């Protein structure tokens, strides 16, 4: 009888492997290769053009003694925590409200979700305009006679990052709401009934039963929000350009500015390496747990 040995494994599922070439290339060349390249050049003193003039950790020393970088990090933390918390909270609450079998659900959902279709550039411009102290909200309220009203987050160094967060939330919560809504809809109707029979008040049901059950949705939402947080750039550029002063600078902008405006690639690479590093520290273990080697159910 014919062959009984295992045929060459390389050629099994050949089509699948061929079809995955773009993914493999992207993963290896762009993501791994690109990152490695960036890391490598962060140890050089490349200026306008990448050059392999190694200077050790100089770029990093400089990075961590630059006030703007420190402010950027601080801003990112504030922005990150705020948008994470509020996106989840607002997104969930809106979803919970919409889940009450209300009328005009579609309309409300559309309203909450439409900003998601707009770019950060657009969002930034609109909110810059709305938060403009002269003719924005502050101006209008003052015009109504409340002269002492003060609301100028974009022009006040100490709260500018909150102004940016407001715009970011406006743009992003809709999607989170959508995810949460999908999650809520996926919850077994019987759980609600059981809780009602048990006499558990609505808010406790949400807090102690529903939310813990929605872990996967929260994880997805978290991933989406977090991926956006690290990358926040356009919004800041459109809204404040990092100002007033450098009060609303963020790391991504630092990278961009130093790579291109300052023509100091080495510095920019060092900053991006730091960003990459922090992303990896948080993400890799999680991604591995979540997607790696998981059994197909």
């Amino acid at each position, binding site marked *: 009888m014919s062959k009984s040995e295992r045929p060459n494994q390389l050629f099994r599922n050949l089509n699948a492997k061929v079809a995955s070439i773009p993914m493999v290339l992207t993963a290896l060349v762009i993501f791994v290769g690109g990152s490695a390249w960036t890391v490598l050049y962060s140890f050089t003193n490349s200026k306008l053009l990448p050059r392999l003039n190694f200077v050790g950790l100089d770029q990093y020393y400089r990075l961590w003694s630059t006030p703007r970088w420190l402010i950027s990090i601080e801003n990112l933390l504030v922005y990150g925590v705020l948008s994470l918390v509020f996106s989840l909270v607002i997104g969930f609450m809106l979803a919970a409200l919409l889940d009450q079998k209300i009328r005009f659900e579609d309309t409300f959902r559309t309203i909450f979700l439409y900003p998601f279709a707009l770019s950060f550039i657009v969002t930034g411009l609109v909110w810059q305009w709305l938060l403009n102290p002269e003719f924005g909200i502050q101006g209008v309220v003052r015009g109504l006679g409340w002269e002492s009203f003060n609301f100028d987050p974009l022009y006040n160094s100490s709260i500018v990052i909150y102004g940016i967060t407001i715009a970011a939330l406006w743009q992003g919560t809709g999607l989170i709401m959508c995810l949460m809504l999908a999650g809520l809809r996926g919850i077994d109707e019987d759980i609600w009934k059981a809780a009602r029979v048990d006499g558990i008040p609505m808010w406790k049901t949400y807090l102690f039963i529903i939310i813990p059950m929605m872990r996967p949705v929260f994880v997805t939402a978290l991933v989406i929000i977090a991926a956006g947080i690290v990358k926040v750039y356009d919004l800041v550029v459109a809204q404040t350009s990092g100002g007033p002063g450098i009060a609303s600078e963020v790391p991504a902008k630092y990278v961009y500015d130093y790579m291109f405006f300052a023509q100091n690639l080495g510095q920019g690479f060092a900053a991006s390496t730091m960003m990459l590093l922090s992303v990896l520290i948080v993400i890799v273990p999680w991604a591995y747990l979540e997607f*790696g080697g998981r059994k197909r159910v």
Partner: protein
Amino acid sequence: MSDHAVSLPAGTGSIGLEASGPRGPKPRHVFSRRNIFLYGTLIVVALYYLLPLYVMVVTSLKGMPEIRLGNIFSPPLEITFEPWVKAWSSACTGLNCDGLSRGFWNSVRITVPSVILSIAIASVNGYALANWRFKGADTFFVILIVGAFIPYQVMIYPIVIILREIGLYGSLSGLVIVHSIFGMPILTLLFRNYFSSMPEELFRAARVDGAGFWGIYFRIMLPMSLPIFVVAIIIQVTGIWNDFLFGVVYTRPDTYPMTVQLNNIVNSVQGVKEYNVNMAATILTGLVPLVVYFISGKLFVRGIAAGAVKG
């Protein structure tokens, strides 16, 4: 809760159960506390979400003198479409005074192939990952997912070099490739989750029927994945149309997408800022994703439920 129950003397037969107690549906007032709270909150929040759009529209319909007068929330006294016309066809950047119109077509030329290519690649990836798991596939997938978090800035330079090496820098195809690359992680995740949630037996049946990798993909999987394709299309159209960074880095001025032109127009201040033109330009730029989204909003929610939630 209401305490309507009338306690009965023991021994009353069922025939005698009082005929006067509550009957029929529990009365519900349209203006119950719950409804007021529910709809009140929703309406207030909806106003918050609508405010910027309102301001944009209103402002874009005003003339500059009226804007300078102040209140951004007041409706236009005199509606003028001039800012729209100007934003579309005659706002200037440098010497080019053809407004957004050129950028619009550039954006279309960028968005359409990018969306198609990125979705094509990602859906095949997701399909391969979900149904044809080969050794090592998971590792690449994890890299891809981690890649979703890498700040674009890290990649900009290496990609410039790569594109230069393959001679695609500055061309539309180069930008299309860049969009496909950066759309890949999230889309692949979506498609993988969606295809995994489809019954595996369907896939097996098709294999027994003799369909191969592509046969199953095109004839079985594709026709069943409308919701997730809608999600992918919305995400990609929105993302690519709205992209600024790649558009500005990887194209040349005559192929600038609309967002870059928007930025140019908004930042090319000639004397005073023409807020009405800026707003009109802003709305025009956002119009395409908005329309796409409004048309397919329902499918979007459904697709999200199918592809994203079971992470």
